[in-house]
């Protein structure tokens, strides 16, 4: 905020309003049991994922930690279950809870990175389309329209599937994570471009932009330093909810075999490999990863819903 020109009359009342806004958001958080529940759940899941290398019993990337003596154990509370494998083990003796923690790590990383790609692409293109309009704006928004005619998951599948056909198997293994991140990120940029463009169109005609323009500020400065801070709230809400989409998208792609390979355990690949054992009675290999996936998506969605209501940027 301090970078704004002091001559701008709109900056003067901003600091007190902002402080009041923050305490209002905090109060709304403390009065919403669902938001608190979602936040606690998120903290547990994220810290579990981050701490996986230190708290997990077995490491799926390191075969030396696996012991075949412990393979195919059911969860702890079943008759033949054994401590400390609370959620049971897979056919190689890998602890299911450890697998889930490592998988969560990959899923969260892919989800957040994919949303970064969507936000980056969408924000830049939306700013350009909204600020300049004209031919570049028309091309960008028509491209968004065309992409809206495809469901995002079909587009992500297409990118994942076609790139698998083009790349060699060793390249596929090397680029598995970046490819999934790009496929999911590209499939969702139009949402952000539309949001940013709409907000820019509203902000562009306001006095403070005109004042900055008269003060000789260039379009780059006005877009990034003046308009962008005013559209950050709706972007943050959409990005939060989009993380849920990206995590589900990664899981769906990996489950269908067009996402991450089994050597890169994510929640989706765990469910894919576990599903083969479902009919053999080893239900814990698929149901617990599925439950973890549901928990993380529910937590992100509940938190995003609350954030939207609290910031109230006129989204639905």
């Amino acid at each position, binding site marked *: 905020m301090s970078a704004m020109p002091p001559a701008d009359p709109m900056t003067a009342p901003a600091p007190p309003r902002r402080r009041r806004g923050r305490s209002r958001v905090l109060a709304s958080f403390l009065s919403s049991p*669902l938001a608190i529940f979602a936040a606690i759940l998120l903290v547990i899941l994220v810290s579990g994922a981050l701490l996986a290398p230190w708290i997990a019993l077995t490491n799926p990337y390191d075969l030396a930690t696996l012991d075949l003596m412990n393979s195919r154990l059911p969860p702890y509370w079943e008759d033949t279950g054994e401590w400390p494998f609370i959620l049971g083990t897979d056919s190689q003796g890998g602890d299911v809870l450890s697998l889930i923690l490592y998988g969560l790590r990959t899923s969260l990383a892919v989800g957040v990175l994919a949303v970064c790609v969507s936000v980056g692409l969408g924000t830049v293109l939306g700013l350009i389309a909204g600020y300049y309009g004209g031919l570049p704006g028309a091309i960008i928004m*028509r491209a968004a*329209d*065309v992409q*809206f*005619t*495809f*469901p995002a*998951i*079909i587009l992500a*599948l*297409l990118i*994942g*599937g*076609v790139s*698998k*056909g*083009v790349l060699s198997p060793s390249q596929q293994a090397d680029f598995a994570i970046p490819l999934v991140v790009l496929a999911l990120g590209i499939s969702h940029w139009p949402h952000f471009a539309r949001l940013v463009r709409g907000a820019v169109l509203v902000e562009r005609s306001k006095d403070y932009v005109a004042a900055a323009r008269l003060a000789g500020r260039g379009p780059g400065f006005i877009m990034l330093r003046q308009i962008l801070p005013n559209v950050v709230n709706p972007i943050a809400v959409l990005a939060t909810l989009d993380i*849920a989409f990206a995590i*589900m998208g990664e*899981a*769906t792609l990996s*489950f*269908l*075999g*067009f996402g991450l390979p089994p050597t890169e355990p994510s929640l989706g690949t765990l*469910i894919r490999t576990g*599903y083969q054992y*479902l*009919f053999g*009675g080893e*239900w814990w290999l*698929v*149901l617990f990863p*599925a439950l973890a*996936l*549901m928990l993380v*998506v*529910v937590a992100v*969605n*509940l938190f995003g*819903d609350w954030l939207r209501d609290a910031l109230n940027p006129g989204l*639905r």
Partner: protein
Amino acid sequence: MAAFLAQRLGQAIIVLTVVSVLAFLLTTQIGDPVVSILGMQSTPEDRALLRERLGMDDPFFVRYLTYVGNLLRGEFGISYANQRPVADLIVARLPATLELAGVALFMSLALGLPIGIYAAINRGHWTSDAILTATVIGVSIPTFVIAILLIFAFSVTLGWLPSFGRGQVVEVGWWTTGLLTESGRRALLMPAAALAISQVALVARLVRAEMIEVLRTDYIRFARARGLRPRIINLSLALRNTLIPVITVSGIQLGFLFAFAVVAEAVFQWPGIGLLFLQALGSTDVPVIGAILLLTAAFFVAVNTVVDLLYAVVDPRLRAGAASGRALGGH
């Protein structure tokens, strides 16, 4: 109205043109049709002959026009994997997907509408809040996880329903239907439910939000002030105006059901377009991928256009405002 129609058709043509260019690039830039038709052992002379016969040495633009001309005559090329015309493959698979998506759409509206209406009328009551939270969970479970949970419960544990396939189908002309046999209906139940569950949650959320908006309007408040019974206000006055956006919703739903059918079809090995798409992706069968891409785009554009037209018919304000009404896609 005519201007509105013309504008929508113009947009539809632009979208389909762009997608056809993409599909054309896909089919020409990836893989070599000559090798996939003749096999790896073919001689260079045979390959050159086939290249000439297929017109592959023509200029780019000429080949694109030939491609579009073929598309318009319903010729989508030959599948690399099956060596059969793509159009035949799609026609054979279409009934399975349409039945699946249609039944799922019916389920999602039949459950989602009443749930949404109930949650709107009883806004603030704990049951309404509970429904809202349940719908968040409903939209948070990916389709393939719902499918797996259903299989675990009804196939593995209880053994009531089949976990894959379409059951026994009956041929009615070129259309194969599973709706007429007992095993076909049983096989359809779980895939359709897996598709419908997250859509039920979406429909309920949208109907609730729309109806709450309608219940806030002046004419509803006047109706209350006149002392009309709540039942009449809610179900006769408010619901009628809520149904307008529901038309849009169900249109968009149908599109998404078509898309998520890919996932449900994969889990249940349902022999529809979605499974064909995945198999084509797995073997880089680009003629099939391109054709399904075009078909999906055409389907979405058609649904969006019909929805917008219905909208203009139902809502007089849009007719007056002509083309400036709504953005493409509706959300």
